[in-house]
């Protein structure tokens, strides 16, 4: 990428996530794009199909609670030590969203298949799990490389319309520093469009220093960057800040009721809950 890179405003960035798109987001340990999520909710995004890589916490829960999500493929949605994810749980039981239950390695494999542009990746294990009963897109075949009976699961490629995540830095060429959170590279490789929010700009090129280059995602995978200070909060950001435990604990309690979640939405995000 040449010197023509420049970040865009956050609202312009999230405008590229259009209603109905398949949206990939990372787990809370690898750059949850919370500022962008709040902006998405404020703009009233609808019918997003979410795929979490491989699980999600607060981000999926508030997107679901705000009525932005019609479907979610996930290995788990939870608030971790603060309990089950209240909006997710409520929406599933009320059948307001469709859950496509998965397991972590299958989601990773689906992204790797897309990264290589192959229709599937084989995966060991999982056979006999009830997941398979509800995943007609997963296919069990007899291992074509073996002579005998050797059932093997094939996981189809997952190709999101857009990937959205938060990272510590973008450099002046638009490269993103992701450190050892390499699933972010895989997510970007696998997605048609990649949108990134960053804490700050880095004055120079990561590629001028092999130590920084080792943690860089090249700019040519990235379609747009917006600066969002503390853009992962109240979730933590690797190497930058810890999760705001008090916020998450309070959320877990407040969002237990619809009314409580609506109050949270209005106060913390400045958004009214979308009509159901």
């Amino acid at each position: 990428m040449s010197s023509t890179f420049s970040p865009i405003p956050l609202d312009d960035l999230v405008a590229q996530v259009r209603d109905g798109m398949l949206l990939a987001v990372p787990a809370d340990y690898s750059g949850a794009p919370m500022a962008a999520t709040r902006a998405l909710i404020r703009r009233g995004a609808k019918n997003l199909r979410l795929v979490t890589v491989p699980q999600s916490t607060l981000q999926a829960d508030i997107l679901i609670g705000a009525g932005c999500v019609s479907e979610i493929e996930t290995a788990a949605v939870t608030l971790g030590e603060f309990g089950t994810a209240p909006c997710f749980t409520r929406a599933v039981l009320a059948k307001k969203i469709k859950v496509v239950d998965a397991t972590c390695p299958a989601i990773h494999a689906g992204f790797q298949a897309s990264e290589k542009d192959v229709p599937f990746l084989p995966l060991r294990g999982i056979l006999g799990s009830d997941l398979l009963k509800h995943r007609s897109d997963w296919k069990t075949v007899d291992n074509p490389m073996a002579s005998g009976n050797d059932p093997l699961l094939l996981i189809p490629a997952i190709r999101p319309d857009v990937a959205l995540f938060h990272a510590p830095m973008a450099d002046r060429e638009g490269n993103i520093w992701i450190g050892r959170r390499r699933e972010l590279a895989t997510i970007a490789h696998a997605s048609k469009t990649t949108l990134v929010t960053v804490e700050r700009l880095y004055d120079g090129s990561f590629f001028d220093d092999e130590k920084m280059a080792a943690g860089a995602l090249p700019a040519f995978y990235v379609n747009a960057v917006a600066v969002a200070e503390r853009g992962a909060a109240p979730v933590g950001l690797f190497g930058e800040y810890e999760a705001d435990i008090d916020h998450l604990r309070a959320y877990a309690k407040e969002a237990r009721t619809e009314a409580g979640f609506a109050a949270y939405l209005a106060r913390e995000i400045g958004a009214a809950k979308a009509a159901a």
Partner: protein
Amino acid sequence: MSDCRPEELLAATLADQIPDVRHIAVGAASPIPAAAALLKQARARDRVHVTILHSRRYNSFTDGGRELFDAAAQGRIDVFFLGGVQIDGEANINLVGLGDYPNLTQRFPGCFGAPYMAFVVPNVILFREEHSTRTLVKKVDFVSAPGWSPEGVWRRGGPKALVTGLAVMPFDASRRRFRLASVHPGHTAEDVREATGFDFDMPASVPTTPVPDLSTLGLLRGPIADKLREFYPDFADRVFPVPA
């Protein structure tokens, strides 16, 4: 027992289930298994690598979220812990929900990596503090990970034992059956039978789970509590309060 907290007993008991291995991994939100892994490491003669996903210090993965699963597939992770909202008598675990999926009456977070780790890790230890007919059921409502596999299905490992707040129950995959190996102090084999929703083998005489000795308690309350404080501060402060 008066001097041993339940979490200490469970950590020591879990540690006793861990064979001599090179690499023990602990998933998210598992303070007691984490304590058990660190205890095993501290007491081992040879070097034992401990990965605690929740930790920065005990997590040296650098290849993204898939590395835990790939490393397990490579046979580099010898022990892993799994829980279950429900666990049944064939060691199937349910992490998804109650009811007739997808028409659930209760929803839990989801399967995480359990359907995979249960196959590729040689020694899976099931751990669930609550031992009741609500958690230990005849048949789970949803099989997140099966406890055993029919012949011909590739499977390197699986559940080897279940540890609960009441008992230690090894699992025999060939017979698809648990056996009561010991009951924690203060409880009886009959308590276990009443609190368990599935059939299991019960020997005529069931020993009491040994309480941790002073040296083990010293490790737990000293260096291991200090380590846990990094990534499970709430747990460490509650179970191993720093003397005023």
